[in-house]
């Protein structure tokens, strides 16, 4: 690889990290087998929306900007994003930024999203994408298979008293 090109790429990435880090961007976290338990624990007692998406899942990429729109509408939206496909970190960052999701809590798997990772979220999940989990303050989980209808998500958020 051309060294100047490498330097430019490294520079661009540092710039990206610096710029997004300087604002209220959430750094990507690596999703492992104990990560979902951490997510649940850190949001315990409050409403939580967990959205599962994948870089190689076309319908997921179509849906993603809707979540950005909802985050703009409800700045207190308790949203956690989990990306499941092996993919380029920079491409993920770009996707999230383009969807307006830079400041959402953002996790990505470092390995194949296999039975063990899926079971850490839902033992009955065979791997279809996208999925959204609506988790009430008392811990009840409602699963939406396929793209979510945001009106339904908003009704649920209002129903559990989530802040706007």
């Amino acid at each position, binding site marked *: *690889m051309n060294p100047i*090109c*490498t330097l430019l*790429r*490294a520079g*661009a*990435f*540092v*710039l*990206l*990290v610096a*710029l*997004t880090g*300087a*604002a*209220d*961007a959430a750094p*990507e*976290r*690596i999703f*492992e087998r104990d990560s979902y338990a951490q997510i649940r624990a850190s949001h315990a007692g409050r409403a939580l929306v967990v959205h599962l998406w*994948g870089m*190689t*899942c*076309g*319908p*997921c990429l179509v849906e993603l900007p809707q979540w*950005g729109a909802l985050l703009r509408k409800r700045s207190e939206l308790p949203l956690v994003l989990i990306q499941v*496909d*092996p*993919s*380029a*970190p*920079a*491409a993920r*960052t*770009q996707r999230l*930024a*383009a969807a*307006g999701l*830079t400041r959402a809590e953002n996790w990505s798997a*470092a*390995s*194949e*999203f*296999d*039975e*063990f990772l899926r*079971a850490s979220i839902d*033992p*009955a999940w*065979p*791997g*279809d*994408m*996208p*999925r959204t989990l609506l988790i009430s303050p008392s811990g009840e989980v409602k699963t939406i*298979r*396929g*793209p979510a209808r945001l009106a339904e998500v908003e009704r649920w958020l209002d129903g559990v008293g989530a802040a706007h």
Partner: protein
Amino acid sequence: MSISERIAATVGALLLAGSALAQPVPAAPASAAMHHEGHRAAACASPALACANAASAVFDARGALWLAWAAAGSVSVARSTDAGLTFGPASVVGSPGVALDAGSDARPQIVVDARGRIVVAYSAFKDQAWNAQVLVATSTDGGASFSAPRSLSRDAASQRFPVLALRSDGRLLAMWIDKRTAAAARRKGVPHAGAALASAWSDDGGESFSAERVVQDHSCECCRLAVAFDAQRHPVVLYRSLFADGERDHALLTIAEEGEAQAPARVAEDHWVIDGCPHHGPSLAVSPDGTLHAAWFTLGRSRQGLFQARSTDGGATFTSPQRVGDAAQQPGRPAVYAQGRAVWLVWKEFDGQRIFIKERRSADAGQTWSADRVLAATANSADHPQLIGDGRRVYLSWLTRDEGYRLMPLEAP
């Protein structure tokens, strides 16, 4: 979009424009890879088989086993002459890095023809829109060296999930899932559901492919294809179709003459409506008498789980779907294999702690089946099971993180 998000999007696009996604063959951009690796101490980062998450096996005409695997962004090939116990030196065929498409239902493909020519195919993402291309590499020196991977298609749209199928007359068929019809519809501003099945043939051991064409539109975008040849040596493909009502159920397509596909037949009315990616493709085998054996996964309105059915009229109609496996243990990832009157079906199950490969077999071309039994198990990550044959025996080919690669002979039914 906030100012910081706009800046991030712009810089991200800049970065991507110069990244390895535009050049699929070189390794991943050092900056991105290093940043990511810093967070994943436990990740396996070698192209060696020990780090592989997907492996495909095939026997050559002399009975040697050839394995192609994806590990840490590279596709490699090695040969075993002791049924998978040990492998010779590995050849790295390509290293697309993070652009390698090797998750879920995607995996490298390998065939070895009667003249010993080795053909490997895999897909890698090629641009910032996350379009992929099917890359093909060949070896004519017994795997000592491989050609530089080259794109099978020159179409700008996305091509993923290649399958290589070697016909008994030596012709090599490649089939894959292609987004060119979807891209054309988008350019015209008209709605389009799903992707398409495309095919091409090679008559020179994978050096070149011709007669590239879309054979059927409106397939699921993200489920592997199952390709076999019927008793007349016509290609038959079992795939998750996207029906007009948004149902992602399975269909069987026979390509009677080159490119002249018959109307696909729906295998079962599962009625799985999902505007998403099941990431779960089927398996297909053909007995010498022409009986087709299909196995597939569904979460449809009519049935949920793993199912099998057979057809004795060339795929026009299938028997009523029969449930496979323990519905409480996520049965899936089927592989079916036919030899003479014998048929084997294996699949994956997971009880929350361990992953199992289970098997059932038939001695009468699929009319009756044995009880299910566990063939193998592991307590960590595991690839999908595969069935291969050397003309005499049939074997389970399975890769697991803890135990590594294993090849297990199956009992005759």
